[in-house]
């Protein structure tokens, strides 16, 4: 448990990092306390209607629990982000049901649009609930930008689909070869360029997107086709962080000046095995099923995060059920995000190879 503390502001977190997330997580220990704040991040709830008023219980419970726990945070976070894929198939019923659960949050809420929210009616009903698909705002000296990164080529969107639901279903499959790579698109890139013109190069910039604004794996659409162009627009800024959902797992990366951090889902983890069902599981089918820690506990390998933004860079505290909580924070010395416990290969736990 001998963690290295990256900076003074991490001291208290290190001191208390016993794998639990106390209500009083963040004490401010930085020079200018006015600029320190936290926000919570909940993502990928995939609320799924079975029929009528019946929804998949597992996904409901994930979002309900994240909302209930977020409400316990003290000091209170300044706001909550929802990272996209509130619904499974973009249905009005699903967005309404998910919206009702999210309405339990006691904080200001900002939302990111996910492909599961979008491809039925191209984000129309979502907009009624949560407003524009992309937007920016300033908070305590940080410039926040929310992008709609799950667009794709017009040709595909208006493609040969017999109906809107077919289009939705094709995009909902993670490894579906009939899908299409995600795209921010020219219109939004022009908007972004203009938005950034007002922002000083020393101002910390935090971008929220659903898909990663980096190219990880095209086969699963862990991908944004015009990621390179967006990264280029951000290269002159001192502190840039991209926080994305979609991948349902902890990922972090550094490309030049830009830090990338992924968030957990509240619904299910990627990857997962299809074992221990005993009842219809409603887990999406994946061509290559993979390992998961403990499928008995439906919340296992899901979670939500508390993000500390006290020096313009994020420290992600992952609240993980049935697991040791993790913190991935930017390390100014190495200039990259690092896991505070498992960064060194000696500290890493070997994958399970037998059952």
């Amino acid at each position: 448990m001998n963690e290295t503390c990256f900076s003074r502001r991490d001291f208290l977190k290190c001191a208390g990092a016993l794998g639990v997330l106390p209500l009083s997580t963040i004490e401010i220990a930085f020079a200018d306390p006015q600029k320190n704040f936290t926000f919570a991040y909940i993502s990928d709830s995939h609320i799924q209607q079975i029929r009528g008023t019946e929804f998949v219980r597992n996904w409901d419970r994930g979002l309900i629990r994240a909302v209930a726990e977020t409400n316990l945070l003290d000091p209170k976070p300044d706001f909550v982000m929802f990272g996209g894929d509130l619904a499974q198939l973009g249905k009005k019923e699903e967005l309404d049901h998910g919206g009702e659960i999210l309405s339990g949050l006691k904080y200001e809420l900002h939302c990111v649009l996910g492909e599961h929210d979008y491809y039925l009616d191209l984000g129309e009903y979502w907009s009624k609930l949560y407003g524009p698909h992309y937007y920016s705002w300033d908070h305590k000296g940080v410039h926040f930008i929310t992008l709609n990164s799950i667009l794709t080529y017009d040709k595909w969107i208006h493609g040969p689909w017999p109906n809107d639901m077919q289009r939705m279903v094709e995009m909902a499959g993670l490894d579906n070869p009939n899908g299409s790579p995600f795209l921010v698109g020219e219109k939004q890139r022009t908007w972004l360029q203009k938005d950034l013109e007002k922002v000083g190069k020393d101002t910390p910039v935090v971008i929220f997107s659903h898909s990663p604004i980096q190219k990880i794996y095209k086969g699963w659409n862990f991908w944004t086709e015009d990621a390179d162009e967006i990264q280029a627009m951000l290269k002159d800024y001192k502190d840039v962080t991209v926080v994305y959902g979609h991948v349902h797992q902890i990922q972090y990366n550094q490309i030049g000046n830009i830090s990338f951090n992924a968030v957990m889902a509240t619904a299910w983890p990627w990857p997962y095995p299809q074992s221990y069902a005993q009842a219809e599981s409603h887990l999406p089918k994946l061509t290559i099923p993979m390992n998961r820690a403990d499928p008995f506990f439906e919340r296992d390998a899901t979670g939500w995060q508390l993000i500390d933004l006290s020096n313009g860079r994020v420290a992600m505290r992952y609240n993980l059920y049935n697991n040791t909580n993790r913190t991935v924070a930017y390390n100014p010395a190495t200039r990259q995000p690092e896991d505070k416990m498992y960064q060194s290969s000696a500290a890493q736990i070997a994958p399970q190879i037998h059952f």
Partner: protein
Amino acid sequence: MREKAVKTMCLMLFAGIVACAHVEAESVGSQVNFESVALMNGERPQGDSTLLGLPPVPYPENNPQTPEKIALGEKLFLDSRFSTTKEVSCSTCHLPEKAFTDSPLKVSEGIKKLTGTRNSPTVLNAAYATTLFLDGRSPTLEDQALHPFVNPVEMGLKDHQPILDIVRTDPDYVSAFKTVFGKSGDAVTMTEVTQAIASFERTKVAGDSPFDRWFYGGEEDALTDAQKRGYNLFVSEGRCVSCHLIEQTQALFTDNRFHNIGVGINQIQKDVPVIAGEFLKAEATASEVDVKVLSDKRTSELGRFAVSRGFDDLGSFRTPTLRNIAVTAPYMHDGSLKTLREVVVHYNNGGVTNEGDPVNDFLSGGIRPLNLSDKQVDDLVAFLEALTSPEFAQAVKSR
């Protein structure tokens, strides 16, 4: 040396029989604890029982068992002079004839009939527990024994001095502590007192139930058909075995973990932010926590959270053993369920006692509706009734 070799061979043979006798064991194959298999093949520690279904009892290096120490521990366990009223002993809430609980009380009664917040957990097989108390706030039997003496709703002492005064002067104790620890006068401290109590408790192991004779002993007719069907449900659709472990060589029926199963916490759900917040602000010491959770029902319902302060532990309690459960009604950490059937129905409803009541926001991810039929519920109850050790069979009949 020779004796050891023979012993080891017998044990291996025994393990072999188990493996062959029951194909059903394969259905819980993923639960095999390799560590315990390795232990089985090693030398068994002194004083260990050879009861079917139990692993060797683990002993701390600094507290080896001796017959004299066990006898001293039993004397201390039964002595009611260690309470303010001289009426309450360890055995008041852990009655040997009630499988070391105080059944049928919902929650335990200490001095002056003061009640705590929790249902008395059994001492039986506590020797195997990795944490003690229902929220695991104590790491060892030795440490655990310290607390009830000085809890205001249990034995009520201000500190441990009155106990030391007695054991340092009472001639029987003076001679026993001298024999067991070679100590007398001020050299006798609570360390020796609790070591003796813990040694006694480590002898209170229970196995050899009809289930053990069937599963590990290969006695085909040790269980009824309903009990066998109940076993099959226990390890499959009932989802019981994931927390109440049955392994290939032993069954302690606990994972030693903590789970929110939807009991108690619902009563404070809307106040959790306030109660949890106040609790954390108080920054209580371990002994203050001990007092608080047993004297304030609302704080008690925070469960393991009061110890770990982790969100994941809100409203969660340690998985108890199921051995001899037919003797120890009522059930759950607060004694809120009267019968085993009510318990099974609670799980069948997905962690909800009365169908239609709200599901707790912090419910463990392992708990979900099971859709078992009434007959399946009956079969599971029948199986739970097959976990009674022979020494408590009479207690069931007299209920």
